[in-house]
């Protein structure tokens, strides 16, 4: 048996929402098919409305670019009830205020030693490295979703000219604080981890430090602005200048 795909409609924008069974106690709510900044107002609104509607029956609710995963307590609610509640909650949805998110200023040391793909991305875009840095800094990126690792925010949209596909072979180790681009997304690696994005530089801003904040720095709907700093400034701030050793 294939679990059915239910559909409902947000009346205000006449989009068909698809609700798929993700597990016996989880439903994937699909609002859109493609990444678009304009979609965020709806994803955030759906996140808030569903969190409210499910209340104590909610185990977790994970928004992403186009989808939300609703994980509910199946001892409090059955599959049909959860489906019904989602339908009822989303049909009258109004877009959220996307200006409500926090704006984060992220200082980045852009340098080939810690951002080995600077020349590659610049060359593809037909820009000098300095122009590329300027372009990467010249935009307030929207935090679409958190995930992959604690504190990791999927951000976009990067200017079309800068869009660069992921590395063919991911690096086994990408240094913490590495700032990268994949297609039209940009992100910061919060911790030393494997990864396949094109790395342009490094920041010393901690994205998830339990002892200091207890929760990640970014929230979906926040905005992020990168700011180029010199090696001296980066070092003065305690930044780790160890070059990225591994080449893809």
């Amino acid at each position, binding site marked *: 048996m*294939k679990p059915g795909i239910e559909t409902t409609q947000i009346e205000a924008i006449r989009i068909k929402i698809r609700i*798929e069974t993700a*597990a*016996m106690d989880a439903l994937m709510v699909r609002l859109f098919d*493609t990444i678009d900044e304009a979609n965020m107002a709806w994803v955030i609104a759906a996140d808030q409305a569903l969190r409210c509607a499910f209340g104590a029956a909610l*185990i977790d609710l994970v928004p*992403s*670019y186009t989808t939300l995963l609703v994980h509910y307590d*199946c001892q409090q609610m059955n599959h049909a009830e959860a489906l019904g509640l989602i339908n009822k909650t989303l049909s009258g949805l109004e877009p959220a205020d996307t200006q409500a998110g926090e704006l984060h200023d992220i200082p980045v040391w852009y340098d080939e030693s810690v951002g080995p793909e600077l020349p590659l991305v610049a060359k593809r875009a037909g820009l000098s490295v300095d122009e590329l840095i300027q372009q990467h800094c010249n935009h307030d990126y929207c935090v679409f979703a958190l*995930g992959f690792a604690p504190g990791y925010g999927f951000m976009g949209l990067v200017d079309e000219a800068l869009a660069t596909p992921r590395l063919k072979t991911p690096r086994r180790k990408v240094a913490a604080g590495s700032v990268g681009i994949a297609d039209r997304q940009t992100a910061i690696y919060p911790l030393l981890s494997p990864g396949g994005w094109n790395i342009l530089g490094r920041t010393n801003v901690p994205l998830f430090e339990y002892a200091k904040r207890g929760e990640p720095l970014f929230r979906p709907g926040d905005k992020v602005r990168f700011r180029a700093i010199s090696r001296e400034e980066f070092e003065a701030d305690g930044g780790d200048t160890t070059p990225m050793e591994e080449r893809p």
Partner: protein
Amino acid sequence: MSIEIIKPGLASSIQDKGREGHYHLGIPPSGGMDQRSLIAANLLVGNPEGAAVIECALMGPELRFDTTRKVAACGAEMTPRVNGEAQPLNEVFEVPAGSTLGFDFVKAGARLYLAIEGGIDVPERLGSRSTYALGSLGGMQGRTLQAGDTLALFQAHGQAVSGRHLPPSLVPEFSRQYQLRVMPGLYAHRLRAESETRFYSEDWVVASEADRIGYRMKGGTPLSFIEREPPFGAGDDPSNIVDACYPIGSIQVPSGSEPIILHRDAVSGGGYAMIGTVISADMDTVGQIQPHQKVRFVQVTLEEALAARAHYQKVLKQLRQMP
């Protein structure tokens, strides 16, 4: 009131029932991979069922106790030894002050849970003492145990009784070949029909990359996805999707070649299509499968998954009511 880690074992970590409700921040639940064995070990020594224990994977640690404590070891079959003397599994025994507790090589299963009367005293992080090593969160300084670590213990409560044991009907049985029940869904429609049929009819072998994050499978025929024009934001490979949340238990197949079952330390999302989800009642089983053992995936319906969960809850109830 502490225990010292003489040898850490292969990947020993402090775990409890985990921290739910933070997945939207990229923080997975963590917690014991075989929850049933973790709960059984705690209940045997009279601890609250979610007290922090040591999860020992494949090769157990060697521990020195500076205080006399009753303990119980449940899960994988690795004979415990106090100063070299064999002790029973699934039964409370005493470790006298100054003595050493070690474990033999694993005979069956993959993870043993060592509950110590009173429980392990590490700080709670987001409501749990579980270790999430990838995020440096919880447990012993956010990492697996190392030689030289000293683990503080809570006060002994005096409720533990040597010789108390699991009734034979509640002792899990291990095998070399497992069946895992899967609810197909999510992006399963992106698989070619014949490929999906084959996925459920072949033996898969657990690869050596089998840890708290996920279990990688090898040996089956690579899966074939239907070619499509990638939607904006998704990668070019037909197994790519627009990045989305990965439920715990979901099976993703990067490039179609090697399915990965995500477990309790999973990355919370990414760009690979999921073709189904291992039912929650079978996730404890996944945590007990060793690398190189065989797995068959079996399709089940939502109703069958719920029935399996009800049965699992019944077993937990029996554990809570054991004499």
